[in-house]
């Protein structure tokens, strides 16, 4: 019942802001199905930013609308079209990679500017001047991870477990495996899993153990990672663990035994435990609304809206401009401005839409993130 009430309140709030002049901001995300966790988080993060900005009462006001794409390219295009019918002026693209690839093509041909919170595949921005990313692009994560492991001397022999039907996992794995020999890492074992056989990891772990891997690289989301950690502990295998941004969120899983993740290292742009004012405010608000600690998807969604706010202010844009005019202005701003958000300081974008920010190396100690550097 509480949920229905909040929904009603939200709808009322939305229709209320429709009376004033506001920029219509739309995005697609998996709000149902197996990937709903990522879509919900990104949407919730974006909503908080929109409410904060609207409450400040400045010149920039937003009206946010998210449509469900069920993590499917076809449905994402449908959702995108529904947003277009609604009058979307600027777009938050899609939350996951494959849907974003499909909607980005539409963004490009319709000249609607897009900034995706978390679709990290390189193909999303490739060849499109008006599609930008808030998150690291997958290939960079793979390279950065390999370099990081090598430069800190964490291990020589590395095992990789990746998800064989997932664009994100595959994208990171490809560059990691390519970069590893260059920086002196030896990949001793490489195993996969996929939807439908993502419960039992005994084979993958046994192989890594037998081949003497000192470190296991896990380019995947935290849900399978949590199973891997539990099963490794059960079989008495304790290598170093290294994850990427998808690992973030593991500590906030309800009922998760945090001791399992002790010593896990990950590269992530966002740290919910960071002490700076911005992060603290965001985390507190998110917890108040949803009873959970926000993950990096939420943080990326939050940052996207603030980045838009900054770019629109700089461009002196007004809500009566049409999508195409705004698109040209946004492209100009995003390639020149510097943005400070909860997922990074001094964030810049290149002309091809890729973000440059420093990934933070984190290690989990006593159930919390601690910076590695």
């Amino acid at each position, binding site marked *: 019942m509480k*949920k229905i009430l909040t929904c009603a309140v939200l709808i009322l709030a939305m229709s209320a802001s429709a009376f004033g002049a506001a920029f219509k901001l739309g995005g697609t995300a998996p709000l*149902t*199905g*197996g990937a*709903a*966790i990522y879509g*919900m988080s990104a949407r919730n993060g974006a909503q908080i930013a929109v409410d904060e900005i609207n409450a400040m009462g400045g010149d920039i006001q937003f009206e946010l609308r998210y449509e469900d794409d069920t993590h499917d390219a076809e449905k994402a295009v449908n959702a995108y079209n529904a947003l277009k019918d609604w009058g979307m002026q600027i777009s938050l693209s899609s939350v996951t990679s494959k849907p974003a690839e499909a909607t980005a093509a539409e963004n490009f041909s319709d000249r609607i500017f897009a900034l995706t919170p978390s679709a990290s595949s390189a193909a999303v921005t490739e060849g499109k001047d008006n599609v930008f990313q808030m998150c690291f692009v997958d290939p960079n994560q793979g390279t950065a991870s390999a370099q990081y492991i090598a430069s800190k001397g964490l291990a020589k022999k590395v095992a990789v477990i990746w998800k*064989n039907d997932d664009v994100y996992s595959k994208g990171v794995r490809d560059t990691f495996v390519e970069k590893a020999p260059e920086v002196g890492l030896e990949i001793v074992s490489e*195993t*996969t*899993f*996929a*939807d*439908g*056989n993502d*419960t*039992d990891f*005994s*084979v*993958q772990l*046994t*192989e890594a153990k*037998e081949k003497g891997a000192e470190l296991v690289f896990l380019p995947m989301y935290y*849900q399978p990672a*949590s*199973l891997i950690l*539990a099963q490794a*502990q*059960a*079989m*008495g295998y304790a290598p170093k663990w290294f994850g990427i941004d998808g690992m973030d969120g593991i500590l906030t*899983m*309800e*009922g*998760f*035994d945090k001791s399992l993740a002790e010593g896990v290292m990950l590269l992530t742009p966002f740290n919910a435990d960071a002490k700076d004012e911005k992060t603290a405010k965001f985390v507190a608000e998110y917890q108040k609304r949803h009873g*959970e600690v926000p993950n990096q998807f939420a943080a990326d969604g939050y940052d996207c809206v603030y980045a838009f706010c900054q770019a629109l202010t700089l461009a002196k844009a007004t809500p009566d401009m049409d999508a195409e005019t705004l698109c040209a202005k946004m492209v100009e701003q995003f390639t020149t401005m510097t943005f400070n958000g909860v997922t990074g300081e001094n964030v810049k974008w290149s002309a091809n839409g890729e973000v440059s920010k420093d990934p933070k190396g984190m290690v989990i100690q006593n159930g919390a993130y601690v910076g590695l550097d």
Partner: protein
Amino acid sequence: MIFLNYFISGISLGSIYAIIALGYTMVYGIAKMLNFAHGDVIMVGGYVCFYAVSRYGLNPFLGVAIAMLVCTLLGIIVERLAYKPLRQAPSLAVLITAIGMSYFLQNTALLLWSSNPKVFPSVIGRGAFKLFDGKLSVSHVTVLTIATCLVIMVILSLFISKTRLGKAMRACSEDKGAAQLMGINVNATISMTFAIGSGLAAIAGALLCSAYPTLMPTTGSLPGIKAFTAAVFGGIGSVPGAFLGGLMLGVIEIFAKAYISSQLSDAVVFAVLIVVLLVKPAGLLGRAIQEKV
């Protein structure tokens, strides 16, 4: 030794498939219906158990009991609302309704319990029996799952062959019309089958989540399909067949991952299934169907 370790992993995974397959096979055997919503009833069982144990701090076994109660009720309601009106309809119509029910349960779970994965508290802890100086380990959950499977199998077999209701079930499975003429209430018998099948699903849910402890609204659907495959593998409708099929499917999956390719393990599993069905068209322990001319 690694071979043995893989074998044990296969058995652990297989025992989970087996316990899910028992529910599938029982409902199919009697109602002649592929209940695709079975996997989602398992998920509901998992959530009920999770809330009972994690949120309200109940004893895990009490949690399972509550989950059984809830799932049995759920099974009865689902059957009454969605399947019973279709008793006379073609079997495909029932199949599609079951799929609709599966979507319904998944989306209700999503709204009720959110999409955030929850880590399930194991029913009996994460311990393991160590053999050969710890070179081999068999987790307690695996032992419990197999034991539960065996107990359920024995009880089900006894129930079906000895009790009045069980005999009625068998009669319905053989020939609904004749059973009706013999004074058996076919409708009530089939409803009863669903109730029992759903109760079993709750146990399966608790064990599935104890072995692989993350719980999401989609938790039941893919293991459900695998377990269905296992049931067919063993000969759908046959209770020992489901057990055997489940174990074998688990072992084949793990061996395929270990010795062929982790990338193609699913393809290998399904290829083996196809070969088995070509050699034994009614599954390993299934009864060959007599054709009526």
